[in-house]
């Protein structure tokens, strides 16, 4: 026993006498966390936030958030003697005159990229597996909040150094503020303390970037994690994994060691990136001045979709009764992001409403994406939308690279943004149903072994093997949803429903059918038992299960034709 472990006992005792700790420790120290690589995405987000806090505190020791013009006299020769803001000059100092400063700047920026990236993929994982369902809706909303804050905080961060690129970004932000109907001009004047760029914006942004938003993000992350801890993690279906248990590793020691180790791995990789790969070389852009610009300027990747929206929007503007509305700026700059995030925030409510029995159950076992074809389709549709906008944001780069004209790309995208996402929905939904059909086939016919043998009558067939228990458990985890039905005109007590309620309920039922009507049901227990006996028989005899109907007719079993329309789900 090492001294550290020996001391733990007396220490716990002392603490317990003051804080009643034992009960808490007893309940939590060996809490079980399921393990899967997709569960690390949220962890990466958390770790990169911690890295951001640490590196950010370091940067704030040297950064001067001031727009006062100074003459640069540091050691970066090409900019010597130029007049620039103190913010930019101090960022140059961090990069060239403070040992390790450049490293920390680059750690901070790489961690910011990683923070938003891992959050985005984490959100996708949660969506496609249905992890947002009851009881985890609160955490879904918190997550949407975190993602929003991440965008804004990142934008605020790379606007601070006041270089030519970030200043251009702020100029665009100013234009977007101006485009807000009615109050836009006032928003702009209040935010910038007058006309653009003014002399106070960077110091205002600084407070927002290092105090306000990190504070909010920290609060949200804390709540998020406490809720995860309390509700216990979801898990993927599998042998021994049900809706009522958690299978995984205890926090002490395995999970703690793995997660703690993983923090250092993420930290290490971020630092190595910062050492080897330049990011945001502000010295190459020069100080901000509103009359200059670098061609091909690009924002950080997570702003790319908004940039794309701004680029592909047609130039609509309305002027009437002495006022102007810039649809060409307000829709892509303000509405698109707002609508997308709102849609994300309310999606769980929609699914809750159209799903029978949603409220009566906790959903702790994750869905396989194929088993929720409409949800998966909607997810892929949104991603397609996002990616198309993102492509729009790089239209000049793409044009250059593939030698296309920007006009062609832009016009193609203007149509594609309405046509391609719905197609993606349909294709995804079909693919999901195809996979469901395949799952059903596997249960009824066994797994294809790849071994082809020849029957006495000369026919070739493939040997099918029984599924492993693991495979069976995974496939059988599927829920066969039954759509809600439109209500009768009177309720159970014979009281007529109001017209409005009736209409609403019918609409809900309609939506529910849209969600769940297409479904390839799991086989019935009888079907399954019969099929299994048959598969096993065929497999063991060295004999085979053929795709032939006549050989598949089991005693008392149901004939299953893989190409037939699915039977009505049994109710």
């Amino acid at each position, binding site marked *: 026993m090492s001294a550290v472990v020996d001391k733990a006992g007396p220490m716990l005792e002392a603490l317990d006498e003051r804080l009643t700790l034992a009960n808490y420790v007893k309940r939590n120290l060996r809490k079980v966390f399921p393990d899967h690589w997709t569960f690390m995405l949220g962890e990466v987000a958390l770790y990169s936030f911690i890295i951001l806090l640490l590196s950010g505190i370091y940067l704030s020791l040297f950064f001067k958030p001031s727009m006062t013009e100074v003459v640069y006299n540091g050691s970066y020769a090409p900019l010597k003697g130029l007049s620039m803001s103190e913010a930019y000059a101090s960022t140059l100092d961090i990069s060239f005159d403070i040992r390790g400063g450049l490293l920390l700047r680059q750690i901070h920026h790489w961690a910011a990229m990683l923070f938003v990236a891992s959050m985005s993929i984490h959100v996708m994982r949660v969506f496609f597996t249905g992890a947002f369902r009851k009881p985890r809706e609160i955490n879904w909303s918190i997550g949407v909040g975190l993602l929003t804050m991440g965008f804004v905080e990142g934008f605020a961060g790379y606007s601070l150094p006041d270089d030519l690129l970030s200043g251009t970004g702020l100029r665009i932000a100013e234009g977007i503020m101006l485009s807000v109907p009615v109050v836009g001009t006032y928003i702009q004047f209040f935010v910038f303390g007058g006309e653009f760029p003014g002399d106070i914006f960077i110091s205002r942004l600084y407070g927002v970037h290092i105090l306000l938003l990190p504070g909010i993000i920290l609060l949200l992350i804390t709540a998020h994690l406490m809720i995860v801890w309390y509700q216990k993690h979801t898990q993927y279906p599998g042998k021994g994994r049900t809706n009522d248990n958690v299978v995984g590793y205890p926090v002490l020691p395995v999970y703690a060691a793995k997660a703690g180790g993983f923090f250092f791995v993420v930290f290490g990789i971020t630092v190595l990136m910062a050492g080897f790969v330049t990011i945001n070389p502000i010295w190459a852009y020069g100080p901000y001045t509103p009359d200059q610009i670098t061609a091909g300027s690009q924002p950080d990747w997570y702003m790319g979709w908004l940039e794309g929206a701004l680029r592909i929007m047609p130039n609509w503007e309305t002027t009437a009764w002495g006022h102007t509305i810039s649809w060409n700026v307000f829709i892509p700059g303000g509405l698109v992001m707002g609508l997308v995030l709102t849609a994300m925030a309310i999606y769980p409510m929609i699914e809750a409403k159209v799903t029978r029995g949603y409220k009566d159950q906790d959903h702790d076992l994750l869905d396989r994406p194929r088993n929720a074809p409409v949800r998966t389709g909607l997810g892929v549709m949104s991603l397609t939308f996002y990616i198309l906008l993102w492509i729009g944001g790089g239209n*000049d780069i793409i044009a250059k690279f593939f030698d296309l004209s920007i006009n062609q790309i832009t016009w193609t995208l203007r149509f594609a943004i309405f046509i391609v996402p719905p197609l993606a929905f349909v294709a995804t939904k079909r693919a999901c149903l195809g996979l469901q059909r395949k799952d059903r086939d596997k249960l009824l016919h066994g797994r294809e072994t790849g071994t082809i043998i020849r029957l006495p009558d000369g026919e070739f067939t493939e040997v099918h093997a029984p599924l492993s228990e693991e495979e069976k458990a995974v496939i059988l985890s599927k829920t066969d949803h039954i759509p809600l039905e439109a209500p009768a005109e009177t309720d159970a007590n014979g009281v007529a429903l109001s017209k409005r309620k009736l209409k609403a309920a019918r609409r809900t039922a309609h939506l529910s059918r849209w969600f769940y009507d297409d479904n390839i049901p799991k086989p019935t227990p009888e079907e399954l038992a019969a099929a299994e006996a048959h598969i096993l028989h065929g497999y063991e005899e060295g004999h085979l299960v053929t795709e032939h109907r006549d050989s598949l007719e089991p005693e008392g079993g149901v004939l299953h034709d893989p190409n037939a329309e699915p039977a009505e789900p049994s109710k």
Partner: protein
Amino acid sequence: MSDTDNAIAGETGSSTQVVKPPFVANPDLPPHGARRTDVDPKAAKRAEHQVATCFGLSALATVAFCICYVQIPIDAYLPIPFFGAWSASNLALGLTFGLAAFFIGVGAIQWAKKLMFGGEVTQMRHPLASPPEAREEALEQFWAGADESGFAQRKIVRRSLLMAMSLFPIPLIVILRDLGPLPSDSLYTTLWRPGMRVVLDPTEAPVRPSDIPVGGIVSGMPSVLPAVQEEQGTLNARAKDVVILVRLAPEDIKSQQGGTSSQPWDYQGIMCFSKICTHVGCPIALYEQRTHHLLCPCHQSTFDLADSANVVFGPAARRLPQLPITVDAEGFIVAQTAFDQPVGPSFWERA
């Protein structure tokens, strides 16, 4: 979404059952297969050494970091083929510090994977909802408290409190008033006045028509701008007043935004336009001489300078405002008048 709606749609169906009964009991976890390190003491010893080596390497890297920090001058650069000069200090510090962290991580994960007890365990979930009695008790407590407060009965107190509370945030908004001045007419005005010289950016030299060849384009600003900028201590004037001077062969000019034949807005084919994009305000920079198109690098709005700077492509809705020019007594290019409209992005108050 109200509960009743949901219930209506849900319960009038033929059945409230959703999920098929789990007709095949989910079997137990597979038995935990022994790892090599569980059965072979030699393998365990090897793993132990591996882990310790990782931690040792981390310690070494930390020491190396300190040495590099002190020893490597900050202005030393390594010429790396194809990548240019790299800061030696940044490279060394990143490498050592990164490895110091990375090896702790790898060591810990190896330890967990190879040496700690390796089996998955099962824990039951507990229902999140409290038992009904607890809920009832909680509600009772709440009602008791609410009752004692008299919130429900004392209408006047309740309403006046609500009024006070709803007014209370107002100061928090009012106090933001001095964040900035009101816009007044500042978005409509620029420094341009009749007779003001156009000077070059950045040399600040006045321009003669002969300085600009046909097909040429230069950036300019009002001659007072540097002084104003100095005095204001901001870049505000620069963000609004910068212009471009472009010279076309007079026969190539299809139209201009104003002027008469006796007093055209151009001067011998030299025209002056605002440099601030009417989309969201980037400075416009890319000129294609052959087509007379001016392209904004931000979102590719394209303006046809030969045709009143009208928008021919992209998201900008308005043409670039034209500044009428002529020459003064000394032969330098000057503004005839101020801009006849606001420059830069559109805004609500703009007619």
